[in-house]
């Protein structure tokens, strides 16, 4: 993946670089080096902690910051109430953590920190990270589903009014679509984040190469690409929020299946 001289490698931004503990940090033979990915997870968590801590003044008449934090908790609370009902209240801490962690990770990964020589890293563009979050959501669905309904949970795979001869086939299809959920959940976020970042990087390479090309049409290409980049940046900010929302929304929909069956 070595970049050519003077060229921009759009994939280099996803490379994981160990920062600490490349040697020796091991648990049961698995290396757990502290990488730039882990660093940005830590930064996301820290920024999120600061954000929520700023809203902990518990004033009767909220200030702006408290208002912002309360609007996020209210948003998650409303989403769970709409999708699950009153039973959804107990999932607010989990869905809030999920949504805010992904949202902050996505947004922080878009910061133009390269201007001051730092390299932002979007760990949500790695399926190893999004997969873990997806599997946690899926595991909670399974645990809640079986704890609440026992083997009756399997009735989730047989919709009401299915004709008897169709039941085995429908059961199989529903089972497969159910089992695909963690993959679609994790892959959707990973693909959306990676695609956006690659697109931005490719456009930025157009800008640089257009200037360096030395042809008359070069700067025109650069300017057009730059304008497009600005628009795509706005789109990426939107995608960052939407993907976090989609992840939280789908998790809450799956939890609804576990809580209420059909």
């Amino acid at each position: 993946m070595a970049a050519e001289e003077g060229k921009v490698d759009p994939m280099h931004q996803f490379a994981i670089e160990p920062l600490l503990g490349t040697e020796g940090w091991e648990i049961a033979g698995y290396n757990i080096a502290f990488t730039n990915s882990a660093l940005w997870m830590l930064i996301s968590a820290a920024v999120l902690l600061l954000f929520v801590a700023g809203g902990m003044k518990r004033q009767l008449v909220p200030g702006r910051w408290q208002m912002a934090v309360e609007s996020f908790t209210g948003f998650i609370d409303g989403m769970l109430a709409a999708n699950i009902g009153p039973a959804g209240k107990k999932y607010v801490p989990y869905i809030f953590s999920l949504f805010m962690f992904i949202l902050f990770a996505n947004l922080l990964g878009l910061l133009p920190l390269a201007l001051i020589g730092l390299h932002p890293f979007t760990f949500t563009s790695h399926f190893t990270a999004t997969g873990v979050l997806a599997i946690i959501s899926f595991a909670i669905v399974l645990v809640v589903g079986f704890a609440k309904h026992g083997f009756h949970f399997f009735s989730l795979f047989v919709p009401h009014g299915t004709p008897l001869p169709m039941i085995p086939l429908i059961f199989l299809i529903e089972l497969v679509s159910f089992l695909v959920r963690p993959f679609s959940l994790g892959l959707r976020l990973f693909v959306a984040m990676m695609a956006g970042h690659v697109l931005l990087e490719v456009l930025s390479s157009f800008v640089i190469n257009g200037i360096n090309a030395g042809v008359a049409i070069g700067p025109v290409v650069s300017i057009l690409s730059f304008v497009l980049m600005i628009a795509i940046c706005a789109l990426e900010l939107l995608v960052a929020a939407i993907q976090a929302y989609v992840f939280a929304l789908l998790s809450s929909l799956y939890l609804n299946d576990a809580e209420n069956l059909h």
Partner: protein
Amino acid sequence: MPQIAQLAETYASQIFWILLIFGFVFFVIGRGMVPKVMATVEARDKQIATDLAAAEAARKQADEEEEAWRVQENRRREEAQAIIAEAKAKAGKETEARLAAANAKVDDRVTAAEAKIAEARANAMTEIETVATEAANDIVMRVAGVNVDEPTARAAVKEALHG
């Protein structure tokens, strides 16, 4: 694609750190701080609801008090009107009585005065008649040398005076 190229070396570290850090986010922020934020919101909503209910109750009470005041006020006004009417009637009656008394007194005086005038006039008449009779007697005696007795002279004077 580094995600796949580096998979073998990095997956363990990725999974370890995201579990650790997301666990921290869930337990410290999600479980620790979010319920407090939501409790604040709930407390505020409850406070607003109770304040609204209290304001509604106070408004209702104020309405009721105003209604009671209005009823009382109307009753008072009626009472006042009745008192005024009574006083007016009483005063009218008193004035009438006084006027009647004054009228009676004035009438009495006028009657007395008229009687006195009539008496005075009668006296004057009698005197004039007497004087005229004497004068007629005198005149008759001097002019005609006839001595007229008094009743005749008086009759003649009466005739001349009253036509």
